[in-house]
Structure formats: C-alpha cells, structure tokens
C-alpha cells in the first residue's frame, strides 16, 4: 500500500485543504468542494445479458440502472450511474479502487464486458447551494429545473469547454461534477468566477 501523503489532487497547487470552511457561509449563494480520490470504475457490458446484470448486481449489492441518466445507490457511498446503453460508472467513496475493481473483474469473468479503473482519469468537485443551478446554467446547456432533473439523476454534457458528467446529489441542491483530471484547474477556476456574483464558499474536501 502506498503512503497517502504521496498522492496529489490535481488542485493541490491551490492549497484548498488549508483554506476551506466546514460549511457554506450564509451570505454565499454556492459552495465548492473538491473530491479528488473517489473511486470511479468504468463498466461496459450488455444490458440485455441477464447473466451480466445478475453478476454486477450480486457483486455490488445494487440494482443496475438501465435507463441512461439514472443512478442507483447512495450518492455519498456506492452508486451506479448509467451513462450509455452499455456503459456505467461504479463510484464509491473509497479512495482505493482496487478491491472493487478486483471483485467486478471477477464478477464479469469471461463475459463480453469491460471493467476499467478510471478513478484517476476523472476529477470530481461538488457545487451546492441555492444558486448552484444558476452557476451551472452559465456553463452547461442542460435544463436542471426540478421538473426535468433531480437527485438520482446524472447526465453527460459540457462544463463550458470541458466535457462533464454531472449528477445531482440532493435537493439543496448539491451537484457532483466530474471532469477529466487535466480540466480540474479550468473547471474549478471557471466555477469560482461564474459564482462570484452570488458569493462562493470553499469547503474542505
């Protein structure tokens, strides 16, 4: 096992850990937090193959969502995001993906399926607060109105010029945004700037 202190968030140059607050300041419309080490496993497989579906559900203890944009599980713990008709993300609060990768790899065995650790391919940040939708509307063409989007929903789209996977965590509203690791600095600074008119609290990760 590698020492934790050796690892680096793509935002380590911003030294966020030292400056963050524990919760959003009353006067600020949004709060931003980085979530750098969560597990993100990309899973490809045939949704119409009952053996595959059964194997995944057994390995994860979660139902495999079949409709693109659906999420099953606990947003603060383990969950499955349906990203495409044959593509999912298994995400987990654990910062070591290996045990889960191993059990999923074993679960799919020789089936026509793919399990790939992509935890470090992606970087997650969380945007929450009463003006979170207004900040996202500056960057993203999705309609996030409660009538069309909500908790247990995810979508892939754009965050300004960065590809993004978005999910809503709760009705605060709080959103988790995944961008490719190299876009972390761009996404963070972009959102900080876009949120300026509402006030932005930086939270500890």
């Amino acid at each position, binding site marked *: 096992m590698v020492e934790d202190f050796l690892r680096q968030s793509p935002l380590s140059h911003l030294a966020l850990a030292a400056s963050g607050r524990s919760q959003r300041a009353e006067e600020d419309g949004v709060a931003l937090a980085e979530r750098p080490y969560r597990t993100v496993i990309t899973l490809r497989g045939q949704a119409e193959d009952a053996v595959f579906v059964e194997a995944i559900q057994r390995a994860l203890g979660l139902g495999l969502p079949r409709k*693109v*944009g659906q999420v099953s599980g606990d947003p603060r713990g383990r969950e499955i995001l349906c*990203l*495409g*008709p044959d*593509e999912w993300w298994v995400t987990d609060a654990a910062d070591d993906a290996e045990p889960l990768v191993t059990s999923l790899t074993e679960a799919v065995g020789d089936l026509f399926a793919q399990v790939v650790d992509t935890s470090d391919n992606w970087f997650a940040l969380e945007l929450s607060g009463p003006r979170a939708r207004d900040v996202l509307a500056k960057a993203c*063409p*999705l309609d996030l109105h409660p009538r069309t989007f909500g908790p247990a929903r995810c*979508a*892939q*789209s*754009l965050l300004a010029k960065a*590809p993004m996977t978005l999910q809503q965590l709760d009705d605060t509203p709080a959103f988790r945004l995944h961008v490719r690791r190299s876009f972390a600095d761009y996404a963070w600074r972009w959102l900080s700037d876009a949120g300026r008119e509402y006030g932005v609290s930086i939270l500890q990760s």
Partner: protein
Amino acid sequence: MLLIPCPHCGPRAEIEFSYGGEAHIARPEEPDELTDQEWSDYVFMRRNPKGVVLERWVHAHGCRRWFNAARDTVTYEILAIYPMGQNPPELPEPRYL
C-alpha cells in the same frame, strides 16, 4: 442551434453532438472488387440535397452513441431519429408553410 433528440438522453443542445455526414453509405465488403471510380465515389461523393436528408450524428459530449436522423435542410426540422443499421421510417410530408 438545433435541439437534437438523442435516442438515449432525450433532447439536447447541438453543441453536445458531432455530425457524421450522410447516412446509409455502407463500406464496400470487397474493396478490391471495386473500380477506382467506385471506390472514390464511396470515399468522397455525397449528395447534399435540399430537403430531407438522412444523416448520422453522434452524441459526442453525452452518451457517445451514434444514431441516424432524417432532417429537412429547408426547415431544419428533425423529422425522425432511428438506430444505426436500420432503414429510415416512413416520413411525414415536408412542411413548407
């Protein structure tokens, strides 16, 4: 900017998509059997008519799935979305009001 109904994700902004050109141009099974002319027709020649076109799109910044669309280049109306590998559905008459 078009609003394109992705068969998997629902209606999404055009900026999430990439255009894939004319649909129903199958790659020749035996390229060697083709004359140079036939091969270059396959590689280069497209029809680009005014009116209904059958074309391919990919939801590049979404689910990354390819699909076919029937779109009217006069009205820009998307008349139908249908899966790759399928023939176009029965289409309504073009609507030039």
